[in-house]
């Protein structure tokens, strides 16, 4: 079942077309990463699904129903920057979140502040917080009342390395409990570690979306090496099905169309032609590499 369905969303700011007909589905229980370079439309898209921006056209639905304020109350969200009343403490700001959304209670406020390690400073004014503390409070507000769906826009902004690791572990923990998390991030390494699905945007257009494995794998690459690399390269250029062979540092990369590479056949082919391989493995692309390929950066 899809938690969120986005259909053909379009949005312009004057002459700038921020979204050019974006569509995708977010499956229940997934950690859905939204990636894209600056200005690709990530925050615009999240702002539309949270009703702070009006789309020019297209539509979206939560839980299969048209969006409504009541449905939004069940979604914990952090959009762009931590937005709180500067003169109020963490506790008093979260009381407002609780009053509007109905999520959580006094005990839950204390619990989320402990979770994000702000409990000791719970009575300090928001204006006295560091950037990282403000971000932690925004995460606490999103977590208040344990909503089953979280929308997190750059959740690790302003956090130190320990804070980034804690958020990663928190997302994994929530995912294991069945929560659905929609997350926009620039940190491809983090996304690769926690996301089950991704959508990649580029200048308002959806380049690709799907499970991480589907998006990462566009072809099969077999990594091999032998004592005589020149001889090996000449041989592999004759292997049936390959699309490209090239030298990469100390190994050779043999490219095959997606789903057609069979390492045992590569090994057999080399052996039958008098070459014993020293190394043989299927190379998995990193998200970062795939991201740069897709966005031409």
């Amino acid at each position, binding site marked *: 079942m899809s938690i969120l369905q986005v259909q053909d969303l379009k949005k312009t700011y004057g002459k700038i077309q921020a979204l050019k007909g974006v569509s995708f589905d977010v499956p229940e229980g997934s950690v859905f990463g939204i990636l894209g370079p600056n200005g690709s439309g990530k925050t615009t898209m999240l702002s539309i699904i949270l009703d*702070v921006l009006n789309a020019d056209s297209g539509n979206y639905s939560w839980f299969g129903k048209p969006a409504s304020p009541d449905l939004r109350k069940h979604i914990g969200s952090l959009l762009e920057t931590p937005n709180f009343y500067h003169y109020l403490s963490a506790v008093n700001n979260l009381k407002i979140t609780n009053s509007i959304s109905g999520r959580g209670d006094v005990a839950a406020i204390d619990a989320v502040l402990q979770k994000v390690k702000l409990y000791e400073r719970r009575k300090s004014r928001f204006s006295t917080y560091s950037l990282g503390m403000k971000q932690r409070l925004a995460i606490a507000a999103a977590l208040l009342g344990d909503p089953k769906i979280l929308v997190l826009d750059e959740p690790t902004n302003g956090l130190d390395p320990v804070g980034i690791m804690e958020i990663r572990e928190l997302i994994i923990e929530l995912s294991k409990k069945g929560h659905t998390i929609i997350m926009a991030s620039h940190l491809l390494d983090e996304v690769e570690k926690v996301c089950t699905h991704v959508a990649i945007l580029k200048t308002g257009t959806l380049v690709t979306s799907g499970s991480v494995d589907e998006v990462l794998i566009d072809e099969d690459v077999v990594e091999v090496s032998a004592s005589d690399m020149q001889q090996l390269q000449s041989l592999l250029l004759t292997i049936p099905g390959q699309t490209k062979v090239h030298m990469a540092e100390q190994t050779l990369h043999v490219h095959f169309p997606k789903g057609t590479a069979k390492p045992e056949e590569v090994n057999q082919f080399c052996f039958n032609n008098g070459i014993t391989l020293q190394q043989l493995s299927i190379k998995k692309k990193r998200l970062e590499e795939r991201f740069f390929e897709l966005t031409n950066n």
Partner: protein
Amino acid sequence: MLQLLRTEWLKLKNYPGFWWLMGMTVLSYPGINGMFYFVFKTETSNAKQAAQLLKMLLGNPFEFPEVFRTAAFLSSCFVTVPALLVIMLITNEYTYKTNRQNVIDGWSRNQFLIAKFFNVVIISLIVIALYAIVTFSIGFINTGADVKNKFQLVHYIGLFGLQTFAQLSFAFLLGLLIKRAFIALGVFIFYKIPVENISGELLKKYVHPEAGRFLPTESSDLLTPVPAFFGRLDQKVYDHSLSIINEQIFITLAYLLIFWGLVFWIYKKRDL
């Protein structure tokens, strides 16, 4: 609705700026009326011929029932203080981007504005209460037992209330449009004093002698005419100002619909 009011109270109860401005509002209404009252008492209480002449000219504007009109006119000059409070209530939300967070957390845009509408109503009610307390206090101190029809002009409480609510609603609209507190307040004062006065005179001269009274804040300003002693300067003009009050009520109500209609329409259409 209670949930909306409770949330607004959570926003304000620990906000020092709100209490400072509320304190200024609470002090300014008794202050302006008290100041004029004491000047009047001082200037008319001695036995000199000039003082007695002044007393004859002014009558007693602080005696029932005339005090209702006098205090309404003087109090209406101080609408800028609660206007700043109202402007701040909306511009703060833009400054902190909490208006968008309220919507993200589950309010509709209309709910956010309804909460603010009630803020403006409550601030207006506080101002009306201050006016009523000041008016009754000065009236009872000044009025002899022999004066009849003490409460003949009690309806000025309603007129003053309508004027205050209309002008605070206009201030709210400016705050929503401009989003910056001090610029919005500057525009409010600049519009109310030079722009509308000059526009009124130009309309009077080139369009129609009565056209000026249809302007956005002039329409409600005319709900509380000058105290009766001004009538001695030009009785015809003064009588006319009293005769148009009922029409001004309808014009003000129409403007209220326009102000709040615009507020809800703009907020629905605008990206947060």
